Structure formats: structure tokens, C-alpha cells
């Protein structure tokens, strides 16, 4: 009995030591390769980090499922909107001709684009599903310019790690890592199902990220900041939603 206990004790001691040093090593590697999300602190940090790290390792370049045109949902569901601001209504009255999307931060040429500018770039479309964290989902055709194209125009510093995007809705901003920012299906989306993107769905400009849950697809985008440090944005959690308990990374 005593021998077995001693052997068990030694084995579990060794296993615990190996486990602890393994964890420390894993944490160092994860930091080095950008596998730690900005909201990794707190009691759910373990789960957030495991999800983000494993999905980044497994699916940096994978493409979201695309569907044939026949499977587009006949009635796309416009989710609840906060009341539109006076500024928004003024721009809307002018047909969004004065809408500007500005880009600054770690770029070589900070710039500002009108909707017409964005539409003058090569237009892409994808028929993908948008899925809300609540459980519902629908399929639509999303038309826009890949974010990577606009980032290429302004020139991104090599050490940049995130793109922060700000909505015209009060207190609404978010960010994605460069893997998502440069992903071919990440669009600055201005059209839907062959028409303009309706205001109810985020028009004139919405961020479209088909590999992440609906709430990352922020509406009414006016501003982008390229950065390598999210600490100076809000509480440093990467998005305003994380300040209310929602995950920054929403690939699940």
C-alpha cells in the first residue's frame, strides 16, 4: 500500500510539474504567436484563450461556407436597432453622399473614403449565412469591397496586429486581428441581395465577417484605426461588447 502511494505521489508530482511548466511554456508561445485574445483576463479567460488559440491555429485561412443563390433567405431578419442619431438622419437625408469612412493609426497614408470611393474599387459578393449569438440565422448575398483592398490602399505597417472599427451608433466599436482583417471574405459591405445595403441591416456600410457571430458584424462604420495595441481603446478588452461580458473573439 505504502509503495503504491509513494509511487503515485511521485508520478502525480512529476505530472503536476510537467503540467505547470507546460502551461507556462504554452502561455509564452501563445503570446509570441498572437494566440491570446485581448479579453483573456478574468474567470472566463481560459475558455476564451483556448477557443481563440485553437481556432486561429486551425482556421487562419479557411473560408466560410458559401451557398447557391437559390438558398438566399427570402426575408432577411433586421435585428433591433438603437434609435438613429440626428447626425445619421442628416446623412441619410442626403443619400449618404457625405458619409465618410476614415482610416488612421499604423498606416502609411491615413485616408478618408466616400461611399462612391468604396464602390469604385473592385466589388466582391458572397452568399453566406449571418448567425446571431441568440440562435437565429439567415443567408444573404453580401456585396462590398474586401477590407484587405482598402488596407492595401493605405499601406499597413508590418507590426500592425489589429483593425479597430467604429460605428456611428453611440458607444459602438469593435476590433479584429489581422488574420480576419486580411481574410478574403471580410468585407466593408455596402450591398445586399443585389441592392443597396438597407439601413436596417447596417447601411450604408457594415463590417461583414462571415466566420464570426453576428455582433462582430457592426453596422454604420465610419472609422478604422490600425494598431498593434488595444489597451488604449475603451477598457482594453478589444471591443465594447467585452465590457458587457460578450467575447471579443466570436468564432463560436
Amino acid at each position, binding site marked *: 500500500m505504502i509503495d503504491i502511494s509513494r509511487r503515485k505521489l511521485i508520478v502525480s508530482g512529476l505530472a503536476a510539474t510537467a503540467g505547470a511548466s507546460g502551461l507556462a511554456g504554452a502561455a509564452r508561445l501563445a503570446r509570441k504567436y498572437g494566440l491570446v485574445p485581448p479579453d483573456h483576463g478574468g474567470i*472566463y479567460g*481560459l*475558455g*476564451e484563450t*483556448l*477557443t481563440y488559440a485553437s*481556432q486561429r491555429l*486551425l*482556421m487562419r485561412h*479557411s*473560408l*466560410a*461556407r458559401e*451557398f447557391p443563390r437559390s*438558398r438566399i*433567405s427570402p*426575408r*432577411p*431578419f433586421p*435585428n*433591433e436597432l438603437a434609435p438613429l442619431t440626428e447626425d445619421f438622419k442628416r446623412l441619410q437625408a442626403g443619400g449618404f453622399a457625405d458619409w465618410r469612412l476614415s482610416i488612421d493609426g499604423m498606416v502609411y497614408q491615413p485616408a478618408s473614403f466616400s461611399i462612391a470611393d468604396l464602390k469604385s474599387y473592385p466589388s466582391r459578393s458572397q452568399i453566406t*449565412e449571418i*448567425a*446571431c*449569438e*441568440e*440562435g*437565429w*440565422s*439567415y*443567408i444573404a448575398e453580401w456585396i462590398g469591397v474586401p477590407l484587405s483592398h482598402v488596407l492595401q490602399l493605405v499601406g499597413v505597417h508590418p507590426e500592425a496586429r489589429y483593425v479597430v472599427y467604429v460605428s456611428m451608433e453611440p458607444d459602438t466599436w469593435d476590433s479584429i486581428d489581422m488574420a480576419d482583417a486580411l481574410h478574403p471574405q471580410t468585407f466593408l459591405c455596402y450591398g445586399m441581395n443585389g441592392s443597396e445595403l438597407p439601413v436596417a441591416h447596417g447601411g450604408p456600410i457594415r463590417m461583414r465577417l*462571415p*466566420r*464570426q*457571430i453576428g455582433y462582430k458584424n457592426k453596422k454604420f462604420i465610419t472609422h478604422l484605426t490600425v494598431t498593434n495595441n488595444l489597451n488604449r481603446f475603451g477598457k482594453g478588452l478589444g471591443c465594447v*461588447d467585452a465590457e*458587457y*461580458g*460578450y*467575447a471579443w473573439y466570436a*468564432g*463560436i
Partner: protein
Amino acid sequence: MATFGSAPLPPEAAHPSHLSTASIAKLVPRHSAVVRVTHWITALCFFALLVTGTEILLSHPRFYWGETGTVLTTPLFQLPIPSSRRLVPTGYNYVLPDQNGWSRALHFQAAWIAVLTGLLYAISGLLTKHFRKDLVPSKADLSWRVLWNSFLKPVRFRRPNAAEASSYNGLQRLTYLLVIFVLFPLVIWSGLAMSLAFASVFPWSVSLLGGRQSARTIHFFVSVALGLFLLVHVFMVSLAGFSTRTRAMITGRAATHKG
């Protein structure tokens, strides 16, 4: 067989404090350390997953079949409960508070821990032949008459005798195998199929289940089945003696009467 029932019984004198009243009771090995540790971690995760899953469900208590579904499409069915979202038509004129943020975070964290624990359990169960020895039923266990009797006995609130409580009958073995090798894998699969990023790498994981909304509906029904299993499990434990069986799952040893 060494660790299950026929092992040399440790002298009762070694554990006097556990057995102040039953002088004829013996402590016999019942559950291995891996089984005990993984059992309680799983129990904790299971509880967290059930609570947070129910909470997430409140934000959209409607279910669909196929790829898509919103409040603008006809549901397969809708649960008669209020919702935490204003735009879901429930028939109740109040909206529950939104608790999805922490619920989702805890749901996925508990899922990670449960899956890693389950892997440890499955690998250890294969290596130690735990499944083959303790969970695969024998031919004799599988006759309909025997299974039916195993079903009737607890239904009539009959407690198992000491010999029965020290092992599992055919019906229990089949149930455990169903939970471990069918329901758990299916709930993990249908859960992962709802991850947009996971689906981008493994699109067949969604299409084989019939689409995203089908995956969600399957996830719900398998969770209900697992919840029912939990109720029956606790009922069976209570019939066999709640404190004895629980102590066996904590200390690894069960008090039994030498017979």
C-alpha cells in the same frame, strides 16, 4: 478484476471513523481515481452547461430544421416560455434580462474542460479496460427479460441488494455506453457545428446534421436527453443509498456487507 470487488478487503480497523455503526461493513474498492476525478469535473461542467445553455436558449426559444431560421420564418416548434429578447414573439408581455454574455463564456469554458476531461476518461478507460470490464454487458445481461426486470425494479422503487449495488446491470451498462459514446459525442459535434469558424474548416460537420438550425435543434434534444439521464442517475444513486454511493465516488471505496 483486481480493483473491482474481488480485491483483498482492507481491514476495517484502518478506517474506523468512517464506520462507527456498521461493524460488519467492509470498505471495498469501487471506482478508480481517474473515474472519480473525471466524474466530479464532468458533473460540475455538466451543471454549468445545463444552466448556461438554458440561459442562452431564453434569447431565442424557437427551433427550426434546416440551415436557417429567424422570427420571420415558421419554427419547427417554440417553447412556451418568455424570452430575453424583445423581438421574439412569446405571448408574454415582459422581456427577461439579457444574461447571454457570461452564459456564452461559461458555456464554452465548461465545454472545453468537459471535453478535455472526457478525452482523459476515454483514453484511460480504453487503456485500463474499464469499458470492457465494467460497462460492456455480457450476453446474459442482454436478454429482454433481464433488461425488463432491471427496468421494473427501480420503477417500483425497489432498492438494489449489496451485490447489485457493487456493479452495473445490463440496462445500466447500455445506458452508460449510450451516454458516453453516443450522446456526449453528439452534443459536442452539434455544438461545434454551430461555430461559424469550425464550420468553415469542416463544412460537412454542419451538412451531415442537416444544416445549422438542425444542429441547434439536435443540440437541444441531446441536452434534454442528457438532463433526463442526470435525473435518472441521481434517482438510481438515491435508491442504492445516496451517501454510500456518493462516498464511493469520492473516496473510491464503498461500504458493503460481507456476504
